[in-house]
């Protein structure tokens, strides 16, 4: 005499902590049937070794007692995210997300719909039993109208608790899924139909063809408060009125597997070729006095670029440098400023509380930063923001440069920052060598090479003005 051995499952469920052949599921529960259908199909298709099942929270959290495949337990509702990561990082894996209706359609609905919408290479089995089984029978998103549960003791009311959520039909609004079906394990005839659907969904995974969603109506006698037969009847008769069975979508013939990824380069090669330039390593130099600067103005004036240009020049001159820009809402509000430090040793605070050098292209920024300048510091500002009512300080040197006017006269008012750079160079306040500044002047435009010639023209005009007008 022989009994049919269930393939793909453990002979004895030792992982439960007991050497047993009896499952932890209640009599009449549909989980065990679906477990068998899945493992049978996996073995028949030769996929057992390749399979990774991601288990849910719910009664099937213990699916690993039974399935003889790789298994990862996920947090409540997160099986699609976990499965996504496995699928993307292990291309040969056949990935199964096994979820219930609370897990998928309530707490994890976003993860589920997003994975489906991305068309992840995985199959989701959603066991729909209209209830939270493991926690004792609360209302789930798929509970039927009028269904009494622990949290809908008067029966689910559409007006206050909404209607049963039809996930298969919702997913059918998405472009990406290849296969969407709903089936049932309520009786033998339905189980045979389900076997075909399960097999089809797993074939698609074998062939790497994309996302499949299979919803399985399943009895939960315990939570439904019914015996096994009555709960199967409820599943077949009541549930199917709301959740009709059938293959809702089958794009399996059109679907094609993802092409293999293009050959990639090594990480060191990638960075060697990347757009950034190399700099010499900074060296300690006790003779160089650290400069702490602020460059400020409004968006579009090249404030941040001027700052970057200065630290590039500093880095080229083997100084330690740090550049700390405004960012976030302040930047989007039109203000632009950056703090930079150029030094002869490791830089402490990147924040410039009291600048030695301030470059200012707008009046509001001058009003904000002038009071902070260190006594004896130097302030470069655009002549046009000065006037009789401009803020001033007797203990700092103010250098007025017609930056915007000169830039406009020489091709672009947006190059006022370049004129300011010439003033910084001419006055030698940064202590950086001229060749480093000239180099950086061009380098910060490497993403816009067409502007280099214009920028140099403005630079030359600015420098000529400085030589004539500044000491």
């Amino acid at each position, binding site marked *: 005499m022989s009994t049919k051995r269930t393939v793909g499952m453990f002979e004895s469920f030792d992982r439960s902590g007991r050497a047993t052949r009896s499952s932890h599921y209640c009599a009449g529960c549909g989980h065990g049937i679906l477990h068998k259908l899945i493992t049978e199909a996996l073995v028949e298709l030769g996929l057992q070794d390749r399979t990774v099942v991601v288990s849910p929270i719910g009664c099937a959290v213990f699916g690993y007692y039974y399935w003889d495949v790789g298994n990862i337990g996920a947090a409540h509702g*997160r099986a699609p995210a976990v499965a996504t*990561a496995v699928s993307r*990082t292990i291309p040969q894996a056949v990935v199964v997300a096994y979820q219930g209706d609370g897990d998928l359609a309530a707490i994890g609905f976003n993860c589920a719909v997003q994975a489906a919408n991305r068309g992840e290479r995985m199959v989701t089995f959603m066991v729909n039993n209209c209830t939270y089984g493991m926690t004792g029978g609360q209302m789930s998103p798929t509970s039927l109208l009028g269904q009494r549960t622990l949290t809908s003791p008067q029966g689910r009311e559409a007006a206050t608790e909404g209607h049963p959520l039809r996930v298969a039909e919702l997913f059918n609004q998405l472009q990406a899924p290849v296969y969407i079906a709903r089936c049932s394990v309520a009786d033998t005839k339905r189980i045979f139909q389900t076997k075909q659907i399960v097999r089809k969904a797993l074939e698609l995974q074998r062939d790497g063809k994309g996302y499949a969603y299979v919803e399985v109506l399943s009895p939960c006698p315990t939570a439904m408060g019914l015996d096994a037969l009555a709960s199967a009847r409820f599943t077949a008769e009541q549930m199917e009125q709301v959740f009709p069975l059938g293959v809702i979508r089958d794009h399996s013939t059109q679907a094609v597997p993802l092409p293999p990824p293009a050959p*990639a380069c090594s990480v060191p090669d990638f*960075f060697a070729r990347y757009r950034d330039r190399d700099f010499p390593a*900074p060296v300690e130099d006790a003779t160089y006095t650290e400069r702490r600067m602020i460059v400020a103005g409004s968006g579009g004036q090249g404030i941040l670029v001027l700052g970057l240009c200065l630290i590039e020049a500093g880095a080229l001159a083997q100084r330690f440098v740090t550049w700390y820009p405004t960012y976030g809402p302040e930047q989007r509000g039109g203000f632009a400023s950056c703090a930079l430090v150029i030094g002869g040793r490791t830089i402490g605070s*990147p924040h410039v509380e009291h600048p030695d050098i301030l470059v200012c292209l707008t009046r509001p920024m001058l009003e904000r930063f002038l009071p902070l300048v260190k006594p004896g510091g130097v302030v470069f500002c655009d002549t046009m923001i000065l006037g009789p009512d401009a803020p001033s300080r007797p203990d700092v040197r103010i250098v007025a440069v017609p930056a915007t006017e000169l830039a406009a006269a020489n091709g672009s008012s947006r190059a006022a920052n370049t004129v300011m750079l010439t003033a910084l160079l001419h006055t030698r306040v940064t202590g950086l060598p001229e060749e480093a500044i000239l180099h950086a002047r061009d380098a910060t435009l490497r993403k816009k090479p067409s502007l280099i010639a214009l920028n140099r023209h403005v630079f030359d005009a600015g420098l000529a003005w400085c030589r004539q007008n500044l000491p």
Partner: protein
Amino acid sequence: MVRLMKGNEAVVAGALYAGCDAFFGYPITPASEIAHAAAEWLPAVGRVFIQAECETASINMVYGAGAAGKLAMTATSGPGMSLMQEGLSYMAGTGIPGVVVNIQRAGPALGNVYTEQADYNQAVKGGGHGSYHAMVLAPASVQELCDGTMRAFALAFQYRTPVIVLSDAAQGQMTESMRLPVVEHDRPAGVAAWAVQGTAASRGNLHTSIFLDVDVLEGINRDLQRKYAAMQVEAAAEEYRIDDAEVVFLAYGTSSRIARTAVDQLRATGVRAGLFRPLTLFPFPREALCRLADRKLVVVEMSCGQFREDVIGQFAAGIRKVPEVQLVHRMGGVLVSVDAVAEAARKLV
């Protein structure tokens, strides 16, 4: 190769040289440039980038890839970090390696996008449910964001634990010169024994964190605590001009750089100041800290005193004696000023 790099980009450079297989992330200021760089750089070297639907998904993707033995990471800031706490508990409880970079912003709640260090307790004390810790590294510069992220992967796999790189907005947004690593790290050893990889050899591997047997779960908790005790060898700190220091600042991350500038200013005016800066926050460099019990101590931080509270706890646990520890701090996105730090020291001498 020395490059000028933004802190947020340095994170991705470090990750790639560590051998990072996958980055999962969701936009949030001031951490978004990490995702920007990851989206461009990871596919270029044949790795995976996914913009997740939320931070909850991000951390669970890290969990999934980690369970498969892959080097995975995410990066976020305050509100996103809060959403990731459940996932971090699962990673710790299940023994899944992975790296999370927190570019701290000011809270609580939506707060703002400027620098704060107020996620200290969340990062160092566990943050999610259950008796667990993530390992926590505390970089202070662009270079250390690169090196720290790279090291975080090695530690995550060595101890099969989540590792948090606890940075902040200032570090993430600033640009500094940085030396790129030379070669990509070897893949971590021993992964085949536990990873679920869709192969015959790994078919028997399982990751679960449900243990209904209370004795079994207590045993797992004891194992976790033993693992945390073993991690203590990784505790590290940097000391700056500390030998003859009368006043020692205790600070980590960006605060430590502000304190370092204050040390130099104080030294220039004859005040013997020094800096003690933990490089790891969990495990905490307790022994090194306790050697400073006879100095005048000033904690510098950008939170309500969370770090100071830990410092006091470390003294109590280490030498059963808690010295006086002053606090200089700001909150809400205001950086501590060098002047305020220096002033606190002057008052003590």
